[in-house]
């Protein structure tokens, strides 16, 4: 059967070059990087080389790059680590500002911190395109605010958040706070969906903490990074040995780290890939919108090139995904039924999409190996699928 993968925002295949870079660290160079013998030192070398590579990519110092297991772990560590560290320093309960369209990793971590009485949380609204207003961040800042956490790119709809603008606001606010004796605010961004296509330089963005994961850009699942700007208070969440500057205990996942390094190296060619994907996305959007009663969700301009989400009226998202899957097309839906939870997508709800419409959400995400024929095939199959489902529905 024909196979067309249009779910790159969910995960990507491991690039063969990444796989080859990992292989020797499973089979021959398998030493523990904490050991002084030559096998251990071989492993240590690759871990530190990759750390340096990632630091270079982010415009950071290599002592600011922490290897983790995934973006969710990075996010948990960033939020809990900062808050708990501040809890131990002062009696004031820290205040977090985040948005209502964050990934569950952020929302659930914030909920945990609130429920365990460690922090207070403000959730900012978004506009109809899923965008946070930078001035809303400014207005939400309180004397006890310690952390602002806004995702770089929304995973469901692909809208890019004004991270640089928010970063500048926080920088200015921190200057004023220093003069009035208030503690500084730290800025975290979840860059999971941004890393392959957008500028992730931490100084350009003005962020103190940045989370990312490898499997969105052709590295394997199971390896992530947390960037921690120097002098950011950080209480480790996983206790044990002194690995990762004492911030994340546990033997380094050497082969996966080696693979992650290769994936970052391959990102050097991303401009080429990005511009190719942009063209494909345009074709995809134009084609899907030819189906009556469909609309694109997310920002019309401030969007990443690899994600395109739609509302298809009169067809339920999971059903669309399943019928497409039957034709070999792999896509995804934010509808309640696919995500395994009752209730419509929190992102679409925050954007003001009515529940009866958000059930018809379908996301297509493209990647480096997507071909024009793949989009052609989708545009050939999708109208029939939609017609079939609409015919089935009561009028």
């Amino acid at each position, binding site marked *: 059967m024909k196979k067309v993968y249009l779910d790159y925002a969910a995960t990507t295949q491991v690039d063969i070059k990444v796989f080859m870079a990992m292989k020797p660290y499973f089979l021959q160079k398998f030493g523990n990087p904490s050991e002084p013998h030559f096998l251990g030192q071989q492993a240590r070398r690759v871990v530190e080389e990759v750390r340096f590579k990632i630091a270079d990519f982010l415009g950071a110092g290599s002592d600011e790059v922490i290897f983790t297991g995934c973006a969710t772990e990075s996010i948990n560590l960033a939020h809990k680590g900062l808050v708990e560290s501040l809890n131990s320093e002062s009696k004031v309960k820290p205040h977090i500002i985040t948005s209502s369209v964050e990934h569950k990793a952020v929302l659930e971590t914030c909920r945990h911190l609130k429920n365990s009485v460690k922090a207070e949380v403000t959730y900012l609204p978004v506009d109809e395109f899923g965008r946070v207003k930078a001035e809303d961040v400014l207005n939400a800042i309180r004397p006890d605010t310690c952390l602002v956490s806004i995702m770089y790119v929304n995973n469901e709809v692909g809208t890019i958040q004004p991270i640089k603008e928010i970063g500048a606001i926080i920088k200015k606010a921190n200057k004023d706070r220093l003069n009035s004796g208030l503690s500084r605010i730290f800025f975290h961004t979840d860059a999971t969906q941004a890393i392959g296509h957008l500028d992730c330089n931490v100084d350009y963005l003005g962020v103190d903490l940045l989370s990312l994961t490898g499997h969105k850009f052709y590295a394997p699942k199971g390896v992530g990074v947390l960037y921690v700007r120097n002098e950011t208070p950080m209480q480790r969440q996983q206790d044990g040995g002194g690995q990762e500057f004492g911030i994340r205990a546990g033997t380094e996942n050497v082969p996966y780290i080696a693979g992650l390094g290769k994936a970052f190296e391959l990102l050097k060619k991303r401009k080429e890939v990005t511009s190719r994907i942009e063209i494909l996305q345009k074709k995809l959007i134009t084609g899907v919108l030819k189906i009556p009663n469909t609309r694109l969700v997310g920002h019309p301009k401030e969007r990443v090139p690899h994600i395109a989400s739609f509302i298809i009226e009169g067809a339920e998202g999971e059903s669309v995904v399943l019928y497409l899957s*039957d034709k070999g097309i792999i896509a995804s839906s934010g509808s309640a039924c696919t995500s395994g939870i009752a209730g419509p997508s929190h992102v679409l709800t925050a954007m003001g999409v009515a529940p009866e419409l958000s059930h018809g959400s379908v996301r297509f995400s493209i990647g480096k190996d997507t071909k024009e024929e793949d989009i052609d095939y989708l545009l050939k199959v999708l109208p029939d699928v939609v017609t079939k489902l609409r015919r*089935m529905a009561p009028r």
Partner: protein
Amino acid sequence: MIKTDNLFNQLYSKKVMEHFKNPKNMGEIKDADGVATVGNPICGDVMKFYIKVGKKGGSEIISDVKFQTLGCGAAIATSSMITTLVKGQPLEKAEKVTKQVIAEALGGLPPVKMHCSVLADEGLKKAIKNYRQRNRKT
């Protein structure tokens, strides 16, 4: 290699997928004897059932049944399945079809989907009720 067929088998049984891909008794009955629409705003599923009632050996039976459904795979499969379970059956027996019966006939449903099948049995019961109400008036 990604085997798309296997992707959803973890979610849905083979039987569910059969009924989802090729639903039985889908459509409408223009001169139906009983009609009912049920909907679940949380899940977003809407189902409409049409029945035709006939006589067989002194008891009233469902001589024809059709459905229209807007919803997820489980909503469509359970709608389809209940129509095959009740077609030709006496009304009293058709009314007794529970969500568990539908789920079992489909080879099981993921727990999170069970509320979808509650809809199908509700929908059919309501269509029978609608038939009875119409008959009382005449």
